[in-house]
C-alpha cells in the first residue's frame, strides 16, 4: 500500500489518490446540444410527414384530372398543365379572377383562377394549380380561343410556375400542346 506522510505527526498515512484539479475533467454533456439534436429530429419527422402524408401534393396532369373527375368530386387537388393562348380577366363570387385553358396531351380543361396569375405566367410555360372541379362554365369562357367548353372548370386559388430547364435563349423550346401552340 502506498503511504503518505502526515505533516504534523511525521508518521506515514494512506496516500490520497483523489485526482488533482489539474487533471482534465471528462467533458460534461452540453444540454443545449441535446436540445438542438431533439429539435432537429422533430423537424425531420415533421418534414417527412408533411412530404409523404399529404396526397394532395401530387400533381395530376390535365388528362388524368379530366379522367378522374368523378372520383375527385369536390376534393382539392393539384393539377399541372400548359396554358393555351388567351386569358380573360373577370370576377368570380365578388373576387378578381382570370380564366384560361390548360392542356396536356391535347386534353383541355378550363380554369377560373382567383387572384392574379403568377408573374411569369405565359402560354407554353407549364403551371401547377391547386383547386377543385366545379360544374358549369366559368365567366368569360366565350372569350377564350381554345376553350374546352365541356361543362366543367377548375376553380383554383394557388398558382406556381413549373419552369423548364432550357437556357438556350431564343432557341429554347416551349411546351407544345393542343391547337393553340
Amino acid at each position, binding site marked *: 500500500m502506498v503511504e503518505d*506522510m502526515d505533516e504534523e505527526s511525521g508518521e506515514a498515512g494512506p496516500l490520497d489518490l483523489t485526482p488533482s484539479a489539474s487533471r482534465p475533467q471528462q467533458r460534461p454533456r452540453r444540454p443545449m446540444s441535446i436540445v438542438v439534436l431533439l429539435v432537429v429530429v422533430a423537424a425531420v419527422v415533421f418534414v417527412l410527414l408533411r412530404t409523404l402524408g399529404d396526397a394532395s401534393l401530387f400533381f395530376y396532369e390535365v388528362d388524368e384530372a379530366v379522367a378522374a373527375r368523378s372520383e375527385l368530386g369536390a376534393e382539392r387537388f393539384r393539377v399541372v398543365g400548359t396554358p393555351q393562348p388567351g386569358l380573360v380577366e373577370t370576377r368570380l363570387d365578388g373576387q378578381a379572377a382570370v380564366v384560361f385553358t390548360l392542356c396536356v396531351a391535347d386534353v383541355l380543361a378550363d380554369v377560373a383562377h382567383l387572384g392574379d396569375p403568377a408573374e411569369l405566367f405565359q402560354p407554353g410555360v407549364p403551371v401547377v394549380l391547386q383547386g377543385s372541379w366545379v360544374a358549369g362554365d366559368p365567366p368569360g369562357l366565350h372569350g377564350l380561343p381554345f376553350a374546352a367548353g365541356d361543362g366543367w372548370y377548375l376553380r383554383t386559388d394557388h398558382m406556381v410556375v413549373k419552369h423548364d430547364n432550357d437556357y438556350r*435563349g431564343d432557341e429554347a423550346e416551349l411546351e407544345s400542346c393542343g391547337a393553340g401552340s
Partner: protein
Amino acid sequence: MADRNTSTSSSGSRLLGVTTLVGLVGLLLFAFVLTEPDVRLHPTTGEEFGQFDAVRLLYLHVPMAVLTYVAFLTCAVASATYLVKRGPWWDVTAHASAEVGTVFCGLVLVTGSIWGRPVWNTWWEWGDVRLMTTLVLFLLFTGYLALRRTAADPQRQARRAAIVALVAVLDIPLINRSVEWWENRTLHQQSTLAELKIEDLTLFTLMLGFVVFGMVFAWLMLHRFRVGWLEQALARYEVETAIAERHAEIETLDLDAAVGETGGGT
C-alpha cells in the same frame, strides 16, 4: 507571425485563398454583369418571357448544390474509413466536410428560395420532393454537428457521428433523382447539363462557378481540417501534460515518503 505548428494557414493556403477571392470577383462579374438575362420572345403572343435577371442565381446555386454533394460524400467516405481504421485523420476530415457541406447546403436552400419567388411564384413549396429532401439533408447534418458536441467520450462521439453521416448521406441519391423519379411531385426542373440545354457564355459562367466554388470548398476544408487537427493535438497535449503532472506528483510523494522513512530510521 503565427507559429508554424499552431497556424491554420500556409503559403499554399494563402495562395489558394487569394486565387479564390480573385475567382469569386470574376464569377460575380460574369454572373451579374457580363451575361445576359434570360429573356425570350413568345412565338405566339410576342411578349417577353423567361427567368429575366433571376437566372443569374443559377451560377451560384447550381455549383453550391454540387459542392454540397461533394462535401457530404467526402464526409461519408471519411466516416466509413474511420469506422474501419479508427484514425483521427479520417474523423477530423469527416467533421470538417460535414461542417462545410452544411454551410453550402444552407446557402443552396436560401438561393433556391430567392430564385423561386420570381420564377415559380413562391418562396417555398411544402411537399415539393426536391425541396423537402434537401431540407431533410440540411437538418440531418445539423443534427450530426449537434451530436458531435454531446457525447463525453470523443471516440464514442466520433463513432456515433460516423454512423449518422452514413445514414444521412443516403438522402443524396433521393435528392438527385427526385426530379426524374417524382416528376409530378416537384416544381424543380430536370438537369440542364445532362440534356445540354445551355450554351455560350451561360455555359462558360456556370463552369466558372463550379471551378470557383470548388476552390472555396478546398480552402474552407483545408482550414477547418487544420482547426480540427489542432483541437485534437491540444486535447492530446492536455491529457499528456496532466499525466506527466500526476506522475511528477506521485514521484514527489514517493520521494517524500522515502525521505521520511530514512529520517524515521535514524
